């Protein structure tokens, strides 16, 4: 088992003919286990990219291929429209990799998707991967192996660190979800914790947060009440100065709120083991197995 994506995922790539879309379609096709069934670039229907047929619209691609999941690489100014198009065509899981989408676009998108019953992951995220089954997005396939650890994270490359360290120690992953670094996103920590708790393959969870907002504090409350499996966390930005945006649109300490110290305290109080640096996560996971 796994969460959100697996061997039944039929993947569609929006923006497949762009530079990043083409490059990562190649990687997703090479990963092989999941089927990239279609690509969409308006005006370029009829082409092929890495053997994947390109359509002019998501509706046509879904009609011809039965795609049920979409991954979006289109530029930020077109991203909201791409998400609406996917939801309208009946896609139930939409993963937006694009960075730089205006937050008000996502607020409107999210309200619409909630009505449609579609799920968005991202934007500004690396996507997700269920090792050996489905790679949706840009997470390198060579650093993960199938296993019992569920990972959910706000950042991309930091999560790769953790996956890599776990994989090196022989701890594979059920699913890794990058929820993205923007102030408002489609899927949050709690959504993923809930799914991992219910997933029989997942034995432990790893949560990777960062400064800004209160998602980690809310996750801590949720864990306290609803999560029985061990959770290990890491929070980035302990040395970040207040009032400065640290790369991610959502990573900012505002009015003294959203500090790493507060998040670490909230998680620790909920019984979560908080690592000092990402490579310690594997040690904690290992110790949990020794019991």
């Amino acid at each position, binding site marked *: 088992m796994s969460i959100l994506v697996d061997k039944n995922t039929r993947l569609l790539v929006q923006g497949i003919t762009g530079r990043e879309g083409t490059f990562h379609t190649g990687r997703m096709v090479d990963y092989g286990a999941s089927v990239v069934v279609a690509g969409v670039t308006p005006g370029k229907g009829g082409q092929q990219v890495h053997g994947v047929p390109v359509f002019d619209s998501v509706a046509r691609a879904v009609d011809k291929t039965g795609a049920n999941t979409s991954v979006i690489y289109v530029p930020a100014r077109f991203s909201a429209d791409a998400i609406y198009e996917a939801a309208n065509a009946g896609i139930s899981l939409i993963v937006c990799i694009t960075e730089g989408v205006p937050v008000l676009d996502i607020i409107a998108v999210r309200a619409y998707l909630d009505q449609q019953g579609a799920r968005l992951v991202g934007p500004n995220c690396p996507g997700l991967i269920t090792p050996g089954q489905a790679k949706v997005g840009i997470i390198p396939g060579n650093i993960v192996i199938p296993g019992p650890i569920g990972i959910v994270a706000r950042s991309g490359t930091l999560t790769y660190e953790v996956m890599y360290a776990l994989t090196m120690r022989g701890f594979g992953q059920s699913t890794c979800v990058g929820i993205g670094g923007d*102030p408002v996103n489609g899927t949050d920590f709690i959504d993923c914790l809930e799914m991992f708790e219910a997933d029989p393959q997942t034995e432990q969870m790893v949560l990777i947060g960062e400064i800004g907002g209160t998602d980690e504090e809310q996750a801590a409350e949720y864990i306290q009440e609803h999560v029985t499996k061990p959770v290990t966390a890491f929070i980035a930005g302990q040395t970040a*100065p207040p009032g400065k945006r640290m790369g991610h*649109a959502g990573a900012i300490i505002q009015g003294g709120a959203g500090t790493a110290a507060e998040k670490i305290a909230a998680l620790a109080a909920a019984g979560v083991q908080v690592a000092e640096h990402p490579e310690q996560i594997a040690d904690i996971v290992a110790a949990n197995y020794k019991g």
Partner: protein
Amino acid sequence: MKLHEYQSKRLFAKYGVPIPPGDIATTPAEARKVAQELGGQVVVKSQVLVGGRGKAGGIKLAQNPAKAEAAARQILGMDIKGITVGTVLVDSAANIKTEIYLGIVIDRAARRPVMMASAEGGVEIEEVARTNPGAIIKAHIDPALGLREFQTRDIALNIGLNRAHWRAFNKIAQGLYQCFWANDASLAEINPLVITAEGELLAVDGKMLIDDNGLFRHPDLARMRDVSEETPAEVQARQFGLSYVDLDGEIGCMVNGAGLAMTTMDIIKLFGGSPANFLDIGGGAKSDKVAAALRIILADPKVKAVLFNVFGGITRCDEVAAGVLEALRQVPTEAPMVARLVGTNAKEGRAMLASANMITATTLAEAAQKAVAAARGR
């Protein structure tokens, strides 16, 4: 991106929010001229993008044009929290009877804009939130419905606004929300919104933050950016699409991904060093961007060692390596460099850097320890 008070208020006015008549001045003589044209008592206000102007003496009342000129002379050139005042706003002084707070921010947890109001105007909303949270009345705004009139009426009722002002208050609240939404704001604030002795509502102070990600839709706003309050490195970094924050340590960092860049800073500190900067080259960075990033790092005299930490996903390690080599051709340096490349095309990238005499590392902890040692060695 922050807008100045005068920029925010002019924008509000376009959406029907009443503001006092006034204009900006960059010299005392100009301030006098503005005061003359306005007539009567004026207020001379420093235009800086930091809070606490009033306490610092950056806001002064003036009874006549000569006193306005004198006030401007005092304020222009004044240092407020490290920022030199270059512009003042000269506004007609309102005959203030009551002060209200009215603002809109994004409630991240609710994933909605939220309008907030309080009868305690003129005080920072964070202060009210700490001391008297019950005094803040909130209304979340559904993006599909917009701000409804019942919501503004509800706010007016709950902050105890006299019924005579409800209509005017609704118009201002609607204007503020339209201004917020149409301009991709992440904050739009009128503090205070005053009721004058004449019974009129007036936005005497204004503040706006614009979502940098929305600026592509607003070239007019993008041009308003005041770079005088940023470091040259920060300005240069933005031109190359790099996320850069100046810090005061000695290890220059170049990392892909914001979370990993923050972690790299944290881990340098954990191993006894101190980061000179936060620098995220972003996803899919090409060699020219990487070269620009390295030039910015090496231009910082504090930097005693450089740490490259790249975990390839959308970013390809060979592109990063090409950029590093390109930058080193342009800006030769004696600073020791520690490189750690993992992920997409890492093998190719490592091979390229092997030729450049770099210290290499496999784990993040090892990379940080080597960078700390390298910085100490100089």
